[in-house]
């Protein structure tokens, strides 16, 4: 998948006044707006039930907005399904694999789905298998993998298609230290190449160290967003004092003393 040069400054993901949820009577998200540009890594943080996963589901097109909308790669899902969907790869919070496919077959399926050229596919596959220490497990069925290995397979599949946007929900759950390191190294690499990353995580120290901007969600609204300085300012904390964690705590507990 290649990027379109003239779009580089346009946001790859644009969420505009999004109100949504499962039931139209009880929206979970209220007027959520943010965007992500190529070459940016953005951390989506919030307590359990803050609306992070619902936001991600709306971006994926699994839920219909009650109001507002989502644009990926300049189009809404209804306008151009293929363009919209081929622009991102998704790593879910819990690994969702096909029990009847092996690790290698999952990669092949993703390669086919995202139209990765045959020879490029072989190179990328070998590199990913080696990088995530999964070469010996290439023929193993998903049902025989440990939770961490399943998560590795999900991440490898996302990286395989090299899309302009990555949507990653809680990527570090169950990963071993080497896996976390490989993932972070690869995310920095794809970012430098111009991809955008939306990463939801509870590991605030990692989010702070790697992300350029942060979106703090609380009770279905964006409580603060921007770079560290802007989030700290919104929380009324000093950037030096406790960093993101301190600001986050103040934003979600309302404790501004």
């Amino acid at each position, binding site marked *: 998948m290649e990027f379109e040069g003239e779009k580089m400054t346009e946001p790859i993901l644009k969420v505009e006044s999004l109100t949504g949820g499962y039931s139209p009577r009880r929206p979970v998200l209220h007027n959520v707006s943010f965007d992500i540009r190529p070459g940016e890594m953005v951390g989506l943080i919030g307590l359990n039930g803050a609306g992070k996963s619902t936001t991600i589901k709306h971006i994926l097109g699994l839920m219909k907005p009650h109001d507002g909308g989502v644009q990926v790669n300049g189009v809404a899902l209804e306008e151009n399904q*293929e363009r919209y969907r081929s622009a991102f790869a998704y790593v879910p919070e819990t690994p969702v694999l096909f029990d009847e496919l092996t690790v290698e077959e999952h990669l092949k*399926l993703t390669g086919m*789905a995202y139209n990765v050229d045959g020879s490029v596919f072989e190179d990328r596959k070998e590199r990913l298998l080696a990088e995530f220490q999964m070469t010996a497990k290439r023929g193993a069925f998903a049902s025989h993998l440990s939770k961490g290995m399943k998560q590795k397979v999900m991440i490898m599949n996302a990286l395989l298609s090299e899309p302009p946007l990555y949507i990653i929900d809680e990527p570090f759950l169950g990963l071993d230290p080497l896996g976390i390191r490989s993932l972070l190294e690869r995310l920095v690499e794809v970012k430098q190449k111009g991809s955008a990353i939306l990463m939801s995580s509870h590991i605030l120290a990692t989010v702070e160290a790697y992300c350029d901007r942060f979106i703090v969600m609380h009770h279905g609204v964006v409580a603060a967003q921007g770079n560290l300085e802007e989030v700290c300012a919104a929380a009324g904390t000093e950037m030096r004092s406790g960093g993101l964690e301190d600001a986050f705590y103040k934003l979600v507990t309302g404790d501004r003393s």
Partner: protein
Amino acid sequence: MKSPLQALEAMWVKRAADYRKEILPYLGYMGQSGFLLVLSFIAITSGFGYIKLLRDVPPDFPFTLVGVIALVPVLCWSPLRTWLVSADIVFHLPLEARMGHYLFRSFRRSLLLTVVIAGLVLLLYWPLYRHGDGLAGGWWLLLFAAGLRAVNTWGAWQERLLAWPGMRVLLRLLRWLATAAAWTAMLSREPWMAVVFGVLIFALLALVYRIPARHAFPWERLIEEEARTRRTTYLFFGLFIDVPSMASRSTPRRYLSWALRWIRYRHANTFVYLYAASLIRTELGGIIVRLGLLSALIVYWFAEAVWLSGWGAAAAYAVLMLILAVQLGGLRRVHSFTVWRHVYPLPDAKRTESIVRVDSVVLAIAALLVWLPAGITLLISGCPLPAAAAPVIMIAYAWLLRPGRMKRKIVREDDEE
């Protein structure tokens, strides 16, 4: 407040009742489907056939072989419903020492069921046995069968305790062989000799059971067995009505997996690849393979008899292929709720198209393979017309009629959701 033992017992009773309540509606659907009618039809016709056989038993009839084939499975098969689930490992592990009390009811249920079934089969076999020259009398057979039944229930439990799956399979095979050998002895030798022989080989087997590593209580084994029984039950009910989807078990099936390599690496083939893999490796594939083999055998028998100058075989083929086609149609329900269906950059119509393609190709291949033995037999017997017509019509159905119908069905079902 109940004592822990009473609580365990109450839990067993409640779980058993819940299960009965859970499957009751499905039994209703099964009744409505006419399945019982078909079953009683089969029972009546085979009953008549059996009576006819009893009236005029050929002198060279293999009494012992038939007795072994009929009784060994029902003497060996030892199911155990424990109702255990994964959560039990967390919540009931501390009660491990008392789980024997919980399992007592499971064993009682298992014994009751298997004794009744074995008794019925023995009762059916008895008149046939009397035509042969077996030496043992009715009481000998009854007592010996009861002994074998008890030993098998015990043996099956010993196998569940074993830690290594390979050893478990090996010992189960040995148990079946030992039962078959002892039962053969009872049907064909002096009863006292059979008893001595039986006692000896089972004593030996009991010693072998002691050798491998064992669990004190095989939690994981029992939980897996329970889950498998449930899956099988629902798979069976799935023949009559939509059942809640359960995580299906997949097996590598290497003897079919090579077919996946034939699917070309292309964007358009994404779902063809996925559905072909699903068909090959899930239980659906297992059903198709077994049904195909059974159909081939039955159609071959009809062909060998050259019944109705070969058209009888063609008719049986048509009926069996229809059943196979209905089963294969279950492919459309696989992965209908997967998130990737919506995330992959492919239109949903492509998924429908791929299912239809896999379905018609597999049906055409099955049509050819199931017919092959019968077709060759009919050609040799000089019936070329039915030999050629049956597969041509079936493959034409698979290629020309079936895809459109399947597509309409998928679209209709998607709309209903």
